[in-house]
């Protein structure tokens, strides 16, 4: 028996039904992206960091010293794994996290005020600039937060927490009429 298995997003249930048109403040759930954890071999932290920052197809998001999350929109999980294996050769261990993380892409003029309801980081662009990333708590849930623009952020959260984080973000955003849908 040969079959293709269907891959479900953790938020399929939450986002069931016809999508509302996105408002000014909008939450887009990444539907298909590859995510890998890059764990530098002891002593190779700096060279791995250099290799990752030299790549143009993706950016490494800081997770911990010697540990980065890499998100790719274009690769398959296997493709990203291969690409990173090739890039880092024996300097890092690559762990596929594509199924383990859900990507929340959130943008709009009220974004800082919305995120401040859950995240203790100072989100002033002088402090947490575009391109910056870090692990942090959003409410009681651990996320990796990246700033992708003045008013645009991405949160990566463990899959099992995705529904909870989704509910939290929608509550945080209700004052500013936050809308949500799967990314196009």
């Amino acid at each position: 028996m040969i079959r293709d298995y269907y891959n479900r997003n953790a938020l399929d249930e939450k986002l069931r039904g016809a999508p509302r048109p996105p408002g000014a403040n909008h939450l887009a759930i990444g539907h298909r992206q590859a995510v890998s954890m890059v764990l530098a071999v002891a002593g190779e932290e700096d060279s791995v960091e250099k290799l990752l920052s030299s790549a143009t197809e993706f950016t490494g998001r800081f997770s911990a010293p010697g540990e980065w999350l890499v998100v790719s929109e274009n690769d398959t999980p296997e493709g990203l794994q291969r690409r990173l294996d090739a890039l880092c050769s024996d300097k890092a261990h690559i762990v596929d996290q594509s199924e383990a993380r859900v990507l929340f892409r959130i943008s709009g003029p009220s974004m800082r005020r919305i995120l401040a309801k859950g995240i203790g980081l100072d989100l002033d662009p002088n402090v947490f600039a575009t391109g910056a990333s870090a692990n942090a708590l959003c409410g009681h849930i651990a996320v990796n937060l990246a700033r992708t623009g003045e008013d645009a952020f991405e949160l990566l959260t463990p899959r099992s927490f995705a529904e909870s984080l989704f509910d939290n973000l929608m509550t945080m955003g209700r004052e500013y009429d936050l809308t949500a849908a799967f990314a196009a």
Partner: protein
Amino acid sequence: MTAYRLTAGGLVDRSRALSFSFDGRPLRGFAGDTLASALIANDQLLAGRSFKYHRPRGIVSVGSSEPNALVTIGSGARSDPNTKATVAELYAGLTARSQNRWPSLGFDIGAVSDLLSPFIGAGFYYKTFMWPAQLWEKLYEPLIRRAGGLGRVVLERDPESYEKSWAHCDLLVVGGGPTGLTAALTAARAGLRVILADEDFRLGGSLLSETQAIDGAPAHVFADRVVAELQALPNVTLLPRTTVFGWYDDNVFGAVERVQKHVAEPLAKLPTERVWRVVARRALLATGAEERPLVFGGNDRPGVMMAGALRTYANRYGVAAGRSVAIFTNGSAGYQAARDLHAKGITIAAIVDGRVAAEDAAPEGTRVIRSASLIDTRGRRRVSGIVVERSGFEELVACDAVGMSGGWSPVIHLACQRGAKPVWSDTLSAFVAPDVGGGLRVAGSANGVYTLSGCLGDGAAKASAIASELGFKPTQDVMPETGEEADPSFTALWYAPGAKSKAFVDFQNDVHTKDLGLALREGFGHVEHAKRYTTSGMATDQGKLSNINAVGILAGMRGVSPADVGTTTFRPFYTPVSFGALAGTARDKHAAPTRKSPLHEWARKNGAAFVEAGPWYRSAWFPRAGEKTWRESVDREVLNVRANVGICDVSTLGKIELFGPDAAEFLNRIYCNALLKLPVGKARYGLMLREDGFVYDDGTVSRLAEEHFLVTTTTAMAGGVMSHMEYCSQVLWPELKVRFCSVSDQWAQIAIAGPKARSVLQQLIENDISDAGFPFLAAGTVTLKGGLKARLFRISFSGELAFELAVPAGFGIAVADQLMDVGRAVDICAYGVEALNVLRLEKGLPTHAEFDGRVTPDDAGLGRMVSPHKTDFVGKHLSSRYGLTAADRMQLVGLKPVDREKDIRAGAHLLREGMKPSTLNDQGWVSSACFSPVLGHHIAFAFLKSGRERYGERIVVWDKLRDQEAVAEVCDPVFVDPENARMKA
């Protein structure tokens, strides 16, 4: 009618009338009123009853220091008891009710306690109610309890919502009066990120009731102008209706914003209240100063108010508390009030001045009685006159309100919340803020600068200094012009001599001067003892008005300076904060985050009953049509697994991947059993100890490649084990080259168990999983038909032939569906954690019910796992302590009821037959129990003293809590297939 709305003036919007009610009486006020000012406008000065003596009490103050005017606003689940009328912003439809009175505010039966006051002074309850003993519990205490408390709470679900937010700034200004506004403006113009918070609904503070002109315009116009400029600046956040309630370490402040407390119909998208956690590089306290009440006979009669409050009610709200007001003062502030009231057409019956000589200007034609004391007041529920004593002569002066002004106390609460004690200033006759470092500074009246020009200047200067300190360049602004000002001095007067009736110190808690005297006599002269013994300062106002006088009086009685008496401890919260606001959005189902397995929807689709397991919801059992109890479903699932095959979601187990040349060595050190030589492609059971030698967790360790491992943890301990491993790797053995990463969320993991497991699974998998091709404890990557990569482990938690299949999480449901489809022919079933539990008990496998943190490997029958050959592992050394190896330790055994019809339940204890229950005779306890459908009777695990020597012994299973007793036979805990033939098939 004595209190009334002035015909003109004030900052209320007379074009917007608001109707509200008090004790059911419909009343009207204006937009811009507080409930208190609106009540005064309606001649409702009587607002509450005191705590102990139920004395009638009127509005005293104008802000959050109010001790008397506590009301319940709203009704049903929207009731807010103990709300200070003086801070409640009026809105159309507001309903308020008075408290602590029966049957009515005007006539309160409880007031008889006032007559008993000589018998029920401070601390009387410690000395009585002891005879006869049983009456305390049955009679006295219930009576005291019923008398206690003020407002009535409705313990129903709150229909409104709350939230929290972080805020970061360079400067937090607390207080939006003259000091705070100029400080905020100065800092904002220099470019600092500024947050200005004020508890009032309108920014301006004292400027809103000030008659002094600034730059030739009314003070409130100046305030509005500053506010407008601040509002326009992008680096400023203005937070009116926001009380900064606490100062915490690292200059973090807690503040609560009353977002929608002032609206009848709150919007659903906004919270009712919002707690701000403000991280401030610098903060400036511009909290002003509190006017002191004077302690004199009859000072609690309704109509006796703070002089400054009378002034604010008249100037800001356009209401007068009386037509003929007497002023009792010991400083210039009383004269200021008299002048302003006089200017509004209110008669000043007299100014009684405790000082010998004073230069302050009284309004023209006003009688000033110097060197005098106010010794009593007249009137029933409203003051009608005062008794003034001067040089031994008493005189009755008629009036319908009294303004008292005892000088000023800087509001320094926040500065003293982190341990630093207030400092007594002889010059100011007041406690001032201690030096608490650069993070928090104090300015304006809070700093003892009481003049308007002084406040404006101090605010600007302190803000400038802060700006420079933080590297900003302050602009040089011209100070606003204020003109001539009165000298704000006063002479401290703690207690007006000659009181003819009770002179109250703490109004709400009914503490009067005699109580303090009694406390001192009984040895409670220390300020903390006096507070605790008399309850002075312990009411809902936390002694904002009373504490300073209590200190002064104690100092007087002890013959020392207030400096020697000191203050009680200032603690959060500055004013009370609701549970709801502090809890924010975390409530009900969102009280804690929820984790869902990637197979959650699969389980739901298959009818699972879910159970909370830590953050997870796990499928407990899968009821089918016709099954009436959970036991029926579980029995069926167990029997089906033993006879055919079942699948179970085990995705919630913790999964950690390890890499590196030292990964094997690392694992060998954190598990007590040997793992160094685990072959690639194999899994092994692993037991982890704490450093104290007790079992921490168990799981499996699989070697996927020479330097690549996967370990599993129990669901409950997944987070703990991860942290433990991080601790070992980072702190204990940083030299080991190992990296690891949680992959718990990456995989959906399915246990497939039962004699037909292989035949079902093989249909999905390309690889050979025959016993030869994939033997017991094999572990490795497999390919599903169609190409999907998966991981397969031949491990069993049921004693049956079993596999665990891990697929990328998103594919979990599809694969589980496929297993169910393929297995239908052999009667596959889904089973839940209840069946899992029965299966493992039948097979003799301990789990977290057994590993309760006090169990050694040997206790659990796993002693043979502890490697005697390893030089080191976590827990090795302390495992050998006497107490952990003693022969009489409780050991894991199995139990079977002798009468097979009897049940055994977890939590029961064990007794030798014929022995009386006692702690000394306690032989052990039952850790897990279930009905075994295979055996047809109950089975249990128990920890029994020296248990393994006692197989065959009969023991009493004693469950007094549920009044059950059974006799059981002690046996080996493996009930099914002790030879492991099924598992290895």
